[in-house]
């Protein structure tokens, strides 16, 4: 049992009510729109894979080609499913792959069916996408079996390590070595800028910039490698990747199909840090979170990012506000509390007096406000300066705060943060740091009860109060106008600007999204 604070229940209730009210207009908006990536995800769930060998030097996936062609011919207002399965059920195409090849050959002719034709297309689409969701369900059951066979890590927090060479075949031995050295969760960082690609690259990839492309094949290869090492270690080693970006729905679908265990999926990260259009982001994140919910995937949210741009003391309450919004959006999409890896970070300037006590207060606030969520605790980066000795000490304090306050997923800090991508010895020293703190103080939470009205309790309540005040303002102004006005992070993101806006479409009456329909029927 870790240390908890007794938070003012009226304040906690108020915070959740406000978060629900702030989120509702955006949830409604998400229901009224579709996006090219949602439509492509429908085709991926129905099993369409591969790329057009001709257009775009063989890099453009069939799902992009089909969605773009449907859009040109009949628009996306009714969704891609009706025109595509109309082509199949009317006999103009023999299969989904055949539809794609007709698109490639330039002979595809799409129509939005009506009457009995529409009913037939609808049934066929639901059956095809239902089969894909069945594969997602199979993957979830397989995970449950493997966890039962190999077992979960023996203790919390789970130790989370990153690999990122750019080459999936280099990543695999590194990930296996990290697991043998004690990592419970492996994250494969994506290539720089993948979040801004409006398609998902295909196949096993060997060249990336500061990371490895997220592709279905790379997911499959890495999961298989971790299954191997899980059996060897007698402990199920989890795999993480990143959904955020222009292809959130599709990457979520691929993660569900290939049994990834955790996905980075923040409701607002793409808007704030990547200048992706807000509406595109909210529509895409809702679909992607429904897929994660179905797949039994734990999401990781990105609140740590705020503190890399804003002051970790002054802006602590924006983390709490974002956690509350992420929680609301996630629950609405069907995620359960055990799937909410809400993020926060140890980023207070170590030169600030009482910085460690402030960190403890913030960490305990998150732990106490979200008692059943597997919180993700992120290490210092902003004040890691290249002084590797000072950095090693700071990481030790970060680890201690994580143990003491019962954090669930601990991303291992590297003393060479901001110097090099981690060396073999950097990872080893970082894991030794974690193990020392775990062994020396793993149970210290039992003895640690900050007194009510004391420094930590008071600070936690101050931050919660500031969060409620900010939520009051957001609820009054509206979430989209607040984002446009620069409330989060420090950038202004108007709803009619940003990348991917041209991929947002208002749904017409009769729009069919078989995936959402089947997932909501659950």
């Amino acid at each position, binding site marked *: 049992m870790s240390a908890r604070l007794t938070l003012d229940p009226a304040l906690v209730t108020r915070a959740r009510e406000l978060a629900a009210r702030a989120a509702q207009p955006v949830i409604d908006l998400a229901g009224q729109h579709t996006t090219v990536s949602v439509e492509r995800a429908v085709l991926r769930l129905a099993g369409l894979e591969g790329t057009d060998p001709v257009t775009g030097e063989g890099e453009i996936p069939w799902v992009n080609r089909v969605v773009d062609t449907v859009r040109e011919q009949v628009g996306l207002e009714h969704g891609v499913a009706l025109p595509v399965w109309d082509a199949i059920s009317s006999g103009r195409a023999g299969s989904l792959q055949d539809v794609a090849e007709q698109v490639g050959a330039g002979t595809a002719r799409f129509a939005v069916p009506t009457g009995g034709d529409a009913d037939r297309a609808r049934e066929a689409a639901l059956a095809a996408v239902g089969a894909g969701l069945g594969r997602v369900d199979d993957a979830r059951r397989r995970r449950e079996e493997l966890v039962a066979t190999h077992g979960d890590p023996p203790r919390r927090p789970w130790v989370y390590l990153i690999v990122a060479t750019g080459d999936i075949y280099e990543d695999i031995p590194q990930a296996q070595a990290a697991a043998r*050295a004690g990592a419970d969760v492996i994250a494969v960082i994506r290539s720089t800028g993948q979040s801004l690609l409006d398609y998902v690259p295909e196949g096993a990839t060997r060249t990336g910039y500061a990371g490895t492309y997220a592709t279905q094949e790379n997911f499959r290869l890495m999961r298989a490698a971790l299954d191997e090492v899980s059996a060897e270690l007698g402990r199920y080693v989890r795999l993480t990747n990143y959904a955020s970006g222009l292809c959130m729905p599709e990457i979520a679908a691929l993660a569900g199909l290939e049994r990834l265990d955790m996905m980075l999926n923040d409701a607002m990260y793409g808007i704030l*840090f990547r*200048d992706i259009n807000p509406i595109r982001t909210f529509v895409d994140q809702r679909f992607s979170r429904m897929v994660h919910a179905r797949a039994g995937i734990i999401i990781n949210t990105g609140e740590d990012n705020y503190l890399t741009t804003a002051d970790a003391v002054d802006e602590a309450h924006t983390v709490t506000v974002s956690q509350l919004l992420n929680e609301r959006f996630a629950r609405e999409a069907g995620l359960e509390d055990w799937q909410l890896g809400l993020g926060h970070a140890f980023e207070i300037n170590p030169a600030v007096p009482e910085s460690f006590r402030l960190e403890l207060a913030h960490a305990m606030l998150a732990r106490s406000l979200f008692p059943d969520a597997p919180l993700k605790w992120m290490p210092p980066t902003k004040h890691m300066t290249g002084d590797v000795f000072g950095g090693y000490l700071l990481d030790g304090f970060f680890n201690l705060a994580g143990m003491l306050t019962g954090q669930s997923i601990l991303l291992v800090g590297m003393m060479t943060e901001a110097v090099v991508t981690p060396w*073999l*010895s950097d990872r080893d020293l970082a894991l030794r740091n974690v193990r020392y703190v775990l062994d020396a103080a793993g149970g210290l939470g039992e003895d640690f009860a900050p007194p009510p009205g004391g420094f930590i309790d008071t600070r936690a309540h101050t931050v919660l109060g500031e969060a409620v005040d900010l939520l009051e303002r957001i609820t009054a102004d509206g979430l989209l106008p607040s984002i446009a006005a620069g409330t989060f992070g420090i*950038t202004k993101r108007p709803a009619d600007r940003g990348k991917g806006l041209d991929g947002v479409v208002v749904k017409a009456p009769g729009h069919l999204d078989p995936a959402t329909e089947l997932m909501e029927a659950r």
Partner: protein
Amino acid sequence: MTIVRPYGDTTGDGMVQTSFTLPVPPGPRAEGAALQLATKMGIAPAMVVHSHGIGTDFTFFVVYGSVSHLVDTDLVEVEERAYPLLSPSEVNGAIKSRLHRKLVVMGACIGTDAHTVGIDAILNLKGFAGEKGLEYYREMDVANLGAQVTVPELVGQARAARADAVLVSQVVTQKDAHLRNTRELAGAFREAMGPERPLLVVGGPRFDPAMAGELGVDKVFGRGTTPGEVASYLVSALLPAPTPDPALVPAPAPAPEETAA
């Protein structure tokens, strides 16, 4: 004489500390290998004060010892950047105090280039290499037009926004498309706006930073450029620190011959 040696606890002791990993299983042979490397590095006598295995195939070492090399501080050449590297708060401060309004920066990828990695790394809040992008700078008003922007469109937008600087990144270099596009960009701005044109900055992995003049732009950045370098350059180019009026300052006395060397 400006000869120095590393300092442990006594002047001239030459003591250094280093750590490294060798792809050798832990054991006496590994320690011997570490000593051999330390000796070749000029550390003699060297002491392996700590070693441990990382997995079965690697060993990590901490080595202390006295290094035989001497350092002559007079021979140190400090490479001077043509402009000082400023922190984000210094950049914001310079804009605030010298411009009295926000610095308007516009970025785009031109031509058929769809690779926005470069311009995004410089402009996006997320940034690059641990540095936040220009969107992070409170005193800059940043617009990123994204990919495949035509040159006339960029000229029009830059004129409408009264951009102080236009940043263009070019990744695709097939048949020297990056050079052709850059010349087209420079020509279009010259024609449309003459000397009133914004500062033109281009960047990309295949550019030679020495080519700015030849291409008709103000600055070319190559591979690995960080947002902080770009921001610092913009300040130095657009908002040079005020220098005292030379007419009011007495000319400096000529330097005495003997110290000129």
